[in-house]
């Protein structure tokens, strides 16, 4: 029997100890009318070899096309050592460190992770992770409501160039708590936010302003000016950032005169494969004054009975298992294993390595844009400084171009036309350091064929 160790003799002895005539008798408290005989719709079991064959066939059906989509998930090289260690059973098959003495490995690693994330974002405290970047933004909005003592409006300003799915998720998760999200348009010529658009909200009670850097179009926002505007207008600043980009960009803790108040994002670029959509992890850092409003697990260093340093879950009075209906969030499990990957990844690359990856990604994207705009009917939408994504406009429908590129082994980008109809036939493209000059040339060739 797969994964079940019992011998016939074991079963006999165990039933005798219980005093039950059969295993079936152990279910005798379930009303007979509810009992089922079998799960007719479930197929018969497969051996490990058979299921391996099935999965390999399914995987090969999808193949490995060259990927040029970013839009919130980014393909980077991950050192071999990262997942070799993450896959160790001691990390892989442990649980939430409720018994701290038996979980010092996970706890110390999380403390190291918290230290790295505060350094990268320029903030004072980090939690031990949330589910993903989008749900982290939702939690940040709820946290801003709790943390902003004077604001009563529950109004959050979200620039239109913030990842639109993040906004969808924030709306869905905060729906029961009456938050209000006002979308602030971007400058149609620049693709970034200008202060004039924010000034339409001057004088209102604003709980928080969300700033994404780089924004969803890959463009760099004037984060200092927006941060100062938000603070001057009594709002907290929620930064949404790509953690890799912080190797080269000013950290949110240094934005404007006072810095951002809450920083969130998706940690996926730090050692987590694209893996078809997850699991990734969300990160959150903040100022010390707001730590008691922060959701999720937090690890603290303390000492044991003998005065020896050790690590433990702390500030648990914020959490659902203690506070129940008055908790800061319902979050329980987080994304521990992905944080393990990110901590090892950051240790192997260091700041110098992350800088190089960021620089290489930016450079390859520049080459990609240069190569693609040579095709007739393809134009660059916004010229301003950017990180590793760019918006192209095409002279025909984007969906069809994407499908035809895919037939040529190129996953060509994200179709912006549904979420941003004002941009026309717009395609969001991305290259990282994993895309070679040959990959870029192959995309350009495919694009030229498709646009013929």
């Amino acid at each position, binding site marked *: 029997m797969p994964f079940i160790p019992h011998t016939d003799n074991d079963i006999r002895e*165990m039933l005798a100890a219980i005093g039950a005539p059969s295993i079936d008798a152990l279910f005798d408290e379930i009303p007979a009318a509810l009992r089922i005989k079998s799960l007719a719709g479930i197929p018969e079991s497969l051996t490990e070899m058979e299921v391996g064959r099935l999965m390999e066939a399914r995987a090969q059906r*999808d193949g490995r096309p060259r990927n040029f*989509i970013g839009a919130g998930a980014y393909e980077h090289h991950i050192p071999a050592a990262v997942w070799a260690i993450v896959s160790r059973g001691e990390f892989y098959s442990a649980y939430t460190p409720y018994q701290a003495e038996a979980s010092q490995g996970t706890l110390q690693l999380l403390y190291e992770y918290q230290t790295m994330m*505060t350094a990268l974002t320029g903030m004072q405290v980090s939690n031990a992770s949330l589910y993903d970047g989008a749900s982290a933004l939702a939690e940040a909005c709820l946290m801003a409501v709790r943390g902003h003592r004077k604001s009563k409006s529950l109004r959050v300003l979200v620039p239109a160039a913030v990842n639109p799915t993040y906004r969808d998720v924030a709306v869905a998760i905060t729906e029961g708590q009456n938050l209000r999200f006002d979308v602030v348009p971007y400058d149609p010529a620049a693709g970034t936010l200008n202060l004039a658009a924010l000034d339409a909200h001057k004088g209102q009670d604003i709980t928080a302003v969300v700033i994404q850097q780089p924004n969803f179009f890959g463009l760099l926002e004037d984060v200092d000016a927006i941060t100062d505007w938000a603070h001057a207008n009594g709002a907290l600043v929620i930064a949404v950032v790509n953690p890799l980009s912080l190797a080269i*960009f000013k950290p949110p803790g240094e934005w404007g005169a006072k810095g951002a108040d809450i920083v969130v994002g998706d940690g996926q670029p730090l050692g987590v494969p694209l893996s078809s959509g*997850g699991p990734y992890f969300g990160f959150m850092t903040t100022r010390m004054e707001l730590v008691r409003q922060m959701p999720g697990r937090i690890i603290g260093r*303390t000492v*044991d009975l003998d005065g020896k340093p050790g690590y433990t879950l702390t500030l648990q009075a914020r959490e659902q298992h203690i506070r129940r209906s008055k908790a800061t969030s319902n979050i329980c499990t987080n994304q521990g294993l*992905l944080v393990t990957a990110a901590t090892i990844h950051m240790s192997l690359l260091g700041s110098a390595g992350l800088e190089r990856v960021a620089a290489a990604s930016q450079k390859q994207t520049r080459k990609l844009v240069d190569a693609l705009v040579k095709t007739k009917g393809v134009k660059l939408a916004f010229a301003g400084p950017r990180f590793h994504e760019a918006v192209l406009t095409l002279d025909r429908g984007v969906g069809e171009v994407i499908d035809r590129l895919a037939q040529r082994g190129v996953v060509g980008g994200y179709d912006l036309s549904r979420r941003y109809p004002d941009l026309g036939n717009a395609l969001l493209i991305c290259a990282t350091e994993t895309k070679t000059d040959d990959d870029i040339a192959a995309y350009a060739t495919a694009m030229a064929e498709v646009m013929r």
Partner: protein
Amino acid sequence: MSEPLIFEHSRSGRSAAGQYPHEGDADVPQNLRRKTRARLPEVSELQAVRHFTRLSQLNFSIDTHFYPLGSCTMKYNPRACNQFAMLPEFLSRHPLAPDGVSQGFLECLYELQEMLKEVTGMKGVSLTPMAGAQGEFAGVAMIRAYHKARGDLVRNEIIVPEAAHGTNPATATMCGCTVVEIPSLPDGDIDLEALKGAVGPKTAGIMLTNPSTLGVFERRIQEVAKVVHDAGGLLYYDGANLNAILGKVRPGDMGFDVIHMNLHKTFSTPHGGGGPGSGAVGVGQRLLPFLPIPIVGRAGERFRWLDERDLPQSIGRLSAFMGNAGVLLRAYVYMRMLGRAGMQRVAEFSTLNANYLLARLQQAGFDAAYPDRRASHEFIVTLKRQAKELGVNAMDFAKRLLDHGFHAPTTYFPLLVPECLLVEPTETEAKEDLDAFAAALIAIQREAEQDPGKVKGAPYTLPVRRLDDVRAAKQLDLSYNG
């Protein structure tokens, strides 16, 4: 046994430079540029590998220790699930890749949806919630959306048994509902009279798990369902405890309208030191339009994502893409390996192990919280007597178990049983491991009678002794500044 922080291994100028490209400087406008490098470690590859390997060795885990943490289902995580979910094509697939190059992946998820419908008796499934708590959120949000869509705007009360997991009331609050707690009877079943008094025109629904967190099957579940439904409310099933009922009884048949399933428990995906989880949700007919998106749909032999255009009444999106895909693939592989008969065996042998271990402990003089009841896949021992007579409490027993090489059961949950240990052995443990665990508890009992101070000082053999939690919360040290 201890390991310095990775930062203490760091030396300026050291690197694992083979890991990154040789490209030069980034092109960033002066005002947006980072001025000083973030203080990340500077270590060699070997130093990093050795450090994190050593850290791993400070952990208890399923692979190294019996881990009977109640309500967490710490069963063996088959290696095949990991290997086949991490095939290079799945790993390198972008979540927004066109459906045309995603058919293999989508077929796996579609079949997973179908299998989950079958085991729960539900009509529709969405895989997108990223953990149990998010699945709960989706469930209550759907209940809210259902009432709202019918123009019934006053139903904002969620009934929760006092034994419920803390996420239940926290979720209800997060969804903008008020929590109404109802008591349990001394035999562990819900107080039906109290329930009848609690329901009314403001009842949105009830959150239950069955078997309950008390480790017993709610025998009058059909009456509970009738009371709640007659009052206009819906029934939410917290599927944290599906392990005990696989192929034996289905939440849909019990009368539940919505369920979340912790795939990281019942379907054996790894717990990862606290995640990732996966909290897929299943619904009955009434809640189908409200399922969170995206969902995999099928047209003939083609699979595609259904989104807001297909389900305009959906409660929306809960993650940036489609949930924890890699976890879903692991659960899919596990379910295919178990097959129809294997799933029933999960329920049978997890229940056999729990009842056997309970019998062993009762024979040795330990007190079951519900001695007249069958255990489900887990059971509660109360150490109230030991705490009173010997001054040795549940936490002391738990810590001393660590010295014996066993992870402790869940302690002090559920809150309504004093000095409790919630023990869940799972079906993958052999009889001799259960016997050894029972022997350890018996030895600790004897020690507590002879030398209680010794038990109260435990653990002695782990990387650290008991930690000062008060100091951790008062003198906050949340990152290294050395």
